[in-house]
């Protein structure tokens, strides 16, 4: 431990030297309050990923409703696995590309893309096609593979999870776009928006040891919530998730859900998958903790069938 500490201190000193040369990184542009959204949730299906997103975001009032000029945006897709897009283990790269383009068109200063992956990070970034997609769209790929990218934060609303180490890009960005892919999951039945946030923290083992479902809901109470959740349900892994074994696990649902409410997005995606939100324990826990609404009939939902 002593050696590690020594190295950390060394890194800290170098970081300080580097930081003093750069622009103050504490600078945050929270921006002016945005106008209320047109809908609580938009579901769309039957088209290609890009077209569905174009139509959904337009119905929501355009990307300008979320991103203001000069803001720093972080897009967090699921890039957990070293598998090709056809395996649906990661967020559809075509969708990621389109979202980044919309952010830049809305005036974003820069758009970062990262994930704390499960397989080796650079292989995941490359094989998923997301690295190329981000580059093509003008976004920047950022790594999340070492602990010193993550800073400890308090989660006062958490029951089991009181602190977490969160990636500095999440903490420093003005806009946080959560881009999960809907997938079956061996631990939590499904992984969607709230579960995708496990990729912005460092120590996931703690979550697994301390009631995973509760920890997922606990982290969703943290103040730096996603500005917008974009649930990719174009290709959906129906079984053997979250990694999947082959393309035989994948079904082409050609759907997309967007919402500022993580719980609503998760509830809608669950129904889309063919099961009830009650079957996915963390959705109910999050609803009861007041993080969002799982009763879709109470929300202003817009449905588009292409």
């Amino acid at each position, binding site marked *: 431990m002593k050696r590690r500490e020594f190295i950390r201190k060394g890194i800290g000193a170098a970081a300080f030297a580097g930081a003093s040369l750069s*622009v103050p990184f504490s600078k945050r542009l929270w921006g002016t309050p945005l106008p209320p959204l047109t809908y609580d949730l938009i579901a769309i299906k039957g088209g290609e990923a890009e077209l569905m997103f174009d139509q959904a975001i337009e119905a929501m009032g355009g990307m300008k409703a979320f991103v203001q000029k000069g803001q720093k945006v972080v897009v967090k897709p699921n890039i957990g696995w070293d598998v090709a897009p056809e395996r649906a283990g990661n967020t559809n790269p075509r969708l990621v590309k389109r979202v980044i383009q919309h952010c830049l068109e809305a005036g974003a200063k820069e758009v970062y893309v990262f994930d704390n992956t499960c397989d080796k990070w*650079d292989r995941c970034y490359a094989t998923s096609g997301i690295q190329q997609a981000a580059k093509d769209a003008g976004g920047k790929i950022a790594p999340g593979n*070492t602990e010193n990218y993550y800073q400890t934060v308090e989660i006062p609303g958490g029951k089991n999870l009181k602190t977490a180490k969160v990636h500095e890009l999440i903490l420093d960005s003005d806009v946080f776009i959560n881009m999960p892919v809907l997938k079956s999951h*061996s631990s939590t039945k499904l992984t969607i928006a709230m579960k995708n946030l496990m990729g912005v923290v460092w120590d996931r083992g703690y979550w*697994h040891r*301390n009631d*995973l479902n509760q920890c997922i809901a606990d982290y969703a109470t943290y103040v730096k919530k996603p500005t917008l959740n974009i649930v990719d349900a174009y290709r959906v892994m129906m079984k053997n998730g979250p990694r999947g*074994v082959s393309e035989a696990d994948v079904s082409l649902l*050609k759907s997309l859900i967007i919402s500022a409410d993580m719980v609503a997005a998760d509830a809608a995606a669950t129904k889309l998958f063919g099961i009830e939100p009650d079957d996915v324990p963390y959705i109910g826990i999050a609803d009861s903790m007041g993080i969002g609404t799982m009763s879709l009939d109470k929300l202003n939902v817009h449905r588009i069938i*292409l």
Partner: protein
Amino acid sequence: MHKGRLKKLRVFLSLFFFAVVGILFFELFGKVFNIAPLYILRLQFVPSLVQFISTFSLVSLGFVFIILLTLLFGRIYCSTLCPLGTLQDLFAFLSRKLSPRKKVFRFQRPVIWIQYGPFALVILSLLTGSILIVNLLDPYSAFGKIVTNFFRPLTVVANNLLSVALSKADIYWLPRIKWIAVNKAALAFALGWIILLVSLVVKRGRLYCNTLCPVGTLLGFFARYSLFRIRLDKTKCNYCGKCSAVCKAECISPFDQSVDFSRCVGCMNCLSPCPDNGVKFQPFWKKDEVEIAAYDPGKRKFLIETGVLLAASLDTTGFVFSNGEKKKEVIKATVPIVRKHPVTPPGAKSQARFNSLCTACHLCVSACPTQVLQPTYFIYGLTGFLQPRMDYITNFCNFECTLCSEVCPTGAILPVSKDEKKLLQLGKSYFVKENCVVYTKETVCGACSEHCPTKAVKMVPYKEKLTIPEVNNNICVGCGACEYACPTDPKSIYVEGNQLHLVAEKPKELKIEEKIDYKEEFPF
């Protein structure tokens, strides 16, 4: 060719080979390894010889080429192709720059048992079926261990410091490299080597190459009969000793105007200093008689001291490492995990085969993108000292990756295709229910099953809505993803190595029934 140019050519070639071989050990970001520079390892004597023994393939005849080269020009291998030779020259270069006094070498008479003793040990070790002494003494493998365990971690630290500084300025193009604790035994071994080499180089030049190095000794036999040799022209030599003073092999005797060419490392340093142009590199028929040297007690004393130093460095590595290793493998707990057999890398075929062919050069350790390949201490027994294994506490084997099998220069890890590898069973997984979160806390987990690439670890119904892992070893490949992902300490699932690698069954693919009506209303 002008004799000064001969030395320049030697310096250029040595730096070239040193750079290319060295770079192989710096595949820091686990990018796709370009295979082309690996061909250079065919010109490393021991890897090439071991690969020939393991595969009988013609491409691994590099060692024959080196022997032929030696029969022509003497041991120029030692001064051009051998990276450890060049490393010693670099140490010498640095010490010359740092020390105000010029190093003057003196002719030393060879001592037979010291010159050939280590080599005899190598032969003895090989006859008993163990590659241990080769692993300890082979110059290429020693070089690999030094770079992998000492220089590479230094560059990782430098890279990460720079990366942190850059990211504070919102620059993220330089990724950090996950810092995995340096293997202490391997680091101690590398440091021991560096200390040994530096002290030898400063005091006695290339003494390693003429005593401990099995390749140098073997090539020395051939060099005695080589076509071209260094010789002193008695008609020109005036006994000034300038050639002898620069001879790092200490094999030129100006007193009797002779050269012990079996010890000459072919550096060509002796050609230029001669004021009378009396040092020649010429075919043997122009040579004078070489006298066989006599016994020198001073050398014996020095070598005994060196041996003690080496033994002492080995001893410390043992002390340091055995502690760490025990902590990792046997963790005090509800049910401690005691692995009976370590897991060997894909392509090793069997543990016995791997142990008999790996020279522990650590090229695979450097190349492994996930760093799951880690050097061992005595897990394979005494003879497997520092040979790598799959360490699933550090990480797990990437399902799509075959890099270690591509880079191995000795054939200890044979090439496997991606499709082969995905079915290669390195070991089997065992679930320890008593340690599992689902059993002890009755909360959901399933990290093991999440990471499993074949779903050999499946979650099956347990109490109420809970599910608990179940292992199907027919389709398990032993990649260690389950063990690495398991959040408990001690682990609730672990991989027991297959002593003989097996072929797993292909996971069954049941296609989802697809009757999707994209015009159907949403279910909400």
